[in-house]
């Protein structure tokens, strides 16, 4: 795992490379030749109107949805070339955080984190439980290990789901609007966890409408519309007062609504 020192190091190959991904569903073109790359320790933010293809893009990067065209390379390894049988190995290396958490309702917080360690990574029970508790501590939920998802608040659920992803030692994390389903007062606790992951050197691609957070955490914003990345640039360039970018207009409209 790269330390903070490795961040943005211009040492050649990117950690994650998305090459010309296209995807159609039901006769509608959802992604149209999308490419992007992430260096080790980098965080990029995807913004744009809903229906613009942001979630589909994350699903395709993860190969949870197989793109029609294009490929994803993680540390130089092609998802396409892994084939059907090994794609599970590829997925293990990418953590995914969903808007509505998708915790396993029948398992405690601890077992939500431990189940993939046991069944996918084949760790022994005690080892998996130990690791799960450590990850829950890391997101500040060590005392909630024995509770079931239905007994947790939205913010706590999302932190459990982050712990669950972290336990697999992912090289990259994809976050699909991690705070959109949360009550306003719970957003902060989740953003704090994401911030500390970033500071710890985690490579992340994040879809969010938290413009303020995006502005201070990322060096590059990707604006997505109609299945294409139409603008990319630093928050200063795209979101500056008086900027003519689509991203700027979109974000100021968001701020009008949310007051942030």
């Amino acid at each position, binding site marked *: 795992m790269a330390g903070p020192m490795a961040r943005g190091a211009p040492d050649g190959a990117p950690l994650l490379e998305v090459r010309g991904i296209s995807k159609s569903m039901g006769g509608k073109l959802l992604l149209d030749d999308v490419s992007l790359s992430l260096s080790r320790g980098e965080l990029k933010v995807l913004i744009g109107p809903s229906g613009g293809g942001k979630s589909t893009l994350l699903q395709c990067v993860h190969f949870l949805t197989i793109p029609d065209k294009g490929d994803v390379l993680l540390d130089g390894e092609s998802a396409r070339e892994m084939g059907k049988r090994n794609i*599970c190995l590829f997925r293990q290396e990418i953590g995914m955080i969903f808007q509505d958490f998708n915790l396993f309702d029948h398992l405690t917080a601890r077992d939500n984190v431990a189940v993939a360690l046991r069944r996918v990574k084949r760790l022994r029970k005690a080892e998996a439980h130990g690791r799960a508790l450590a990850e829950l501590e890391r997101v500040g939920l060590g005392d909630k290990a024995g509770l079931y998802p239905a007994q947790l608040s939205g913010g706590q659920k999302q932190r459990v789901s982050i712990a669950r992803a972290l336990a697999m030692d992912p090289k990259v994390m994809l976050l699909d609007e991690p705070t959109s389903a949360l009550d306003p007062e719970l957003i902060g606790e989740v953003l704090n966890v994401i911030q500390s992951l970033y500071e710890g050197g985690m490579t992340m691609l994040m879809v969010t409408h938290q413009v303020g957070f995006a502005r201070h955490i990322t060096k590059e914003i990707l604006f997505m519309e109609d299945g294409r990345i139409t603008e990319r640039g630093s928050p200063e360039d795209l979101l500056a007062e008086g900027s003519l970018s689509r991203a700027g207009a979109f974000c100021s409209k968001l701020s009008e609504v949310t007051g942030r």
Partner: protein
Amino acid sequence: MIDDFPQFLVSALYIVRGTGWTAALILGAMSLGLLVGMPLAALQVYGPKPLRAPLAAYVWFFRGVPILVLLYLVYFGLFTYAQGPFEGFSWARSAFSPFSASLVALGLTSGAYQSQIFRGAILSLPEGQYRAAMALGFTRFGAVTRIVLPQAARLSIPAWSNEYSILLKDSAIAYVLGTSEIMNRARSIAFLSNRILTFFLLAGILYLLLTWLGVRALRALERRLAIPGLGQGEA
């Protein structure tokens, strides 16, 4: 024929002892149905597409053919042919008995119905949990058996207790093959003694008792397996 009390008691006990056979029959049939129904449901939802039509055909067949016809088909059809190569083996007689024919016919039918119960339960689960499991690197099989089915099974228990009571009542038809269960015994005693009302009433009470016990046991199981914090305040 039965005029004195001791003889009445012996006859009644003979019928009561049929309860064991009925219980064994439905427990066996429920289990066989579970074994058939659970994978059937999982495959219908998550399985490869070419498999779905034959699976649907299975369900269509067993839901459409009367249980009486199935009993005859299994016993006089399937078992007669299957028995051939094993003639002379001592175990063959009990393996291909009316009891096992009834168990197979009832179990396969119950499998068709149970698959529909599980299928409904699987489809009612939030799809995101399956995706989350896949995102963690689970195989399809792992995601279904570790994440989807344990929850679907819990959701199925209320409908399952319904299936239990239907199966219990269907099991009475097994008497036509000579399975030594409650109905068969009640029938022979009732007609022999000419106390038809008494003994069929006894049979009815025994079936009621079994229904009551089974439904209670399943409700206890439902409570025991309930997920804390989930579904509270719902029926």
